[in-house]
């Protein structure tokens, strides 16, 4: 009897992993559901950590079998140049265990306004998944805790710009890898060029993914069932582990600064619904 029960458990576990496995994964490790919001009525502190930058409306709440996230933020009104960035973040508690991050989500609503007197458009990343695992600074060079200089962040982002000519509700999905050039990553350099993965619309359920092939010096990014695209990097970029590793889902706004006389402030607002989150199986927390 006990043997039968154990065999059934093993079978169930095997099925779970098989269901989660997808072609095109960077690693040979199977992927599995990390979170589907079914085991607790609130965010699980053993799986997640979270933070927000100053903003206006904000949400991270489990409702039924989904997580609702919202972030609304206005730009500065002190000038008509540049923009700053602000995020609402949901991060995996153990980022060093993550080589694959995949999220099924729906952008429920998005709006982003620009400033006619500012050449910089506002950007709203209604959703972005980030994987920060590598740093290009020579091993042994001191880096203070939290200093993100030299870290390389791989990202898949679902974004809309204030000067977009796309139909309302359409967002562009891109993959990119960028290097942080200072401690807070307010300056960065894109490695290679961003790759457009496709377009999505509000109310459409989409799946975005990112995986790290450390041996192949490559990140892979994908949208829905399309094949992964490669985001390679020179081997020297992986000189040491990221100083501030993270695996994060975020809403991020870069509202252009805009004086009141120019029509400011600009505002970015995005609401998303997060369904399942998959990772490599070894990262799953039961």
């Amino acid at each position, binding site marked *: 009897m006990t043997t039968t029960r154990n065999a059934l458990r093993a079978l169930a576990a095997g099925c779970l992993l098989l269901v989660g496995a997808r072609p095109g994964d960077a690693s040979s490790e199977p992927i599995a559901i990390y979170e589907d919001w079914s085991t607790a009525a609130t965010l699980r502190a053993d799986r997640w950590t979270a933070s927000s930058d100053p903003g206006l409306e904000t949400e991270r709440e489990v409702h039924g079998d989904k997580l609702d996230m*919202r972030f609304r933020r206005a730009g500065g009104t002190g000038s008509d140049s540049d923009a700053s960035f602000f995020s609402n973040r949901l991060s995996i508690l153990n980022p060093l265990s993550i080589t694959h991050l995949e999220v099924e989500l729906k952008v429920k609503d998005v709006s982003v306004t620009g400033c006619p007197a500012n050449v910089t458009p506002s950007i709203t990343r209604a959703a972005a998944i980030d994987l920060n695992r590598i740093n290009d600074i020579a091993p042994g060079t001191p880096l203070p805790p939290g200093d993100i200089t030299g870290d390389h962040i791989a990202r898949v982002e679902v974004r809309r710009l204030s000067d977009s000519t796309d139909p309302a509700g359409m967002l562009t999905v891109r993959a990119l890898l960028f290097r942080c050039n200072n401690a807070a990553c307010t300056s960065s350099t894109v490695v290679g060029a961003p790759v457009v993965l496709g377009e999505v619309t509000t109310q459409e359920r989409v799946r975005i993914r990112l995986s790290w092939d450390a041996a192949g010096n490559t990140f892979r990014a994908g949208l829905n069932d399309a094949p992964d695209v490669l985001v390679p990097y020179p081997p020297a970029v992986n000189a040491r582990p990221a100083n501030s590793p993270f695996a994060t889902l975020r809403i991020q706004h870069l509202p252009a600064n805009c004086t009141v006389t120019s029509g400011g402030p600009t505002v970015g607002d995005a609401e998303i619904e997060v369904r399942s989150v998959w990772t490599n199986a070894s990262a799953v927390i039961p």
Partner: protein
Amino acid sequence: MNRTLRRLGCAALAVAGLALGWNGAQAAGGGSLDPSFVLYEDWTSAPLMRPDRWLATDNGALDIRREVKGHALVMRSRRPGGTASDVGFAGARHRLVFSNPTAIDRIGVIVDVRTLELSACATNPNQPSLGYTAITLNRFNDGSGGPGNMTGDHLLSINGYRDTRSTDPDGVLRFRGVILRCIDAVCSNAISIPGGVVDLPTTAQVGTRFAMRVVWDSANNQIFIGAGDDPDVALPYPSQVNQKPAGVPFADIRTQLVAANCTSGATATETTLAVPNVYTNAAAIIP
């Protein structure tokens, strides 16, 4: 002459309108605020938070919600305690910050602590879990700090609180007024000044509206604090601690959670605050 009279008349009408707004809020329940408080916000002039009036921050919360709903701002936060030790706590702070703090010398709010859930830890008995709702005004410094440096800033605050050691019936909040001095440039901690704490006799029940207020009486080196319908209480401070403007002036309405760390079981703290009405001195109003 006529134009001046008309302008004065319009100004009087505007103030009367604001005062009427206050009277309406009072009639809806929640306690008293004297007519020197005028309506700063009742969430009727826009369906969303107005960036010219507010900015908000949150630190430490896992679950969070901040939204305008039913002519009130609803602020929810939840923070579990750590599970790696039986010492200390994990905290969360959720702040609704006024955009023009240097114009503010008094704040009154009608609030409703809709939920407050606190769990204690049997193996961390010296650390209660707690939650509070507060108004805080930071306007002056004792000379230790400077622009951007909060060392010596003095925080004038009233809070309605409950912790897991309370022997009060379920859902009862108590009130306390405090004057705190920031110990460093970022105010990583603030310690009450001598004589700077007063417990108020007022209590309130979770799930009911009540008023809280803080008034800075700069000329007389004191603050007045009050809750509910009870009379305000004066809390003086030495004149020499008001040497110059605060290094980082601010005014806010906040909730704060402290969840005891616990290895023997999961602790959690959660609160939902509704803020239907906010009042300030007239000069601080942003139309």
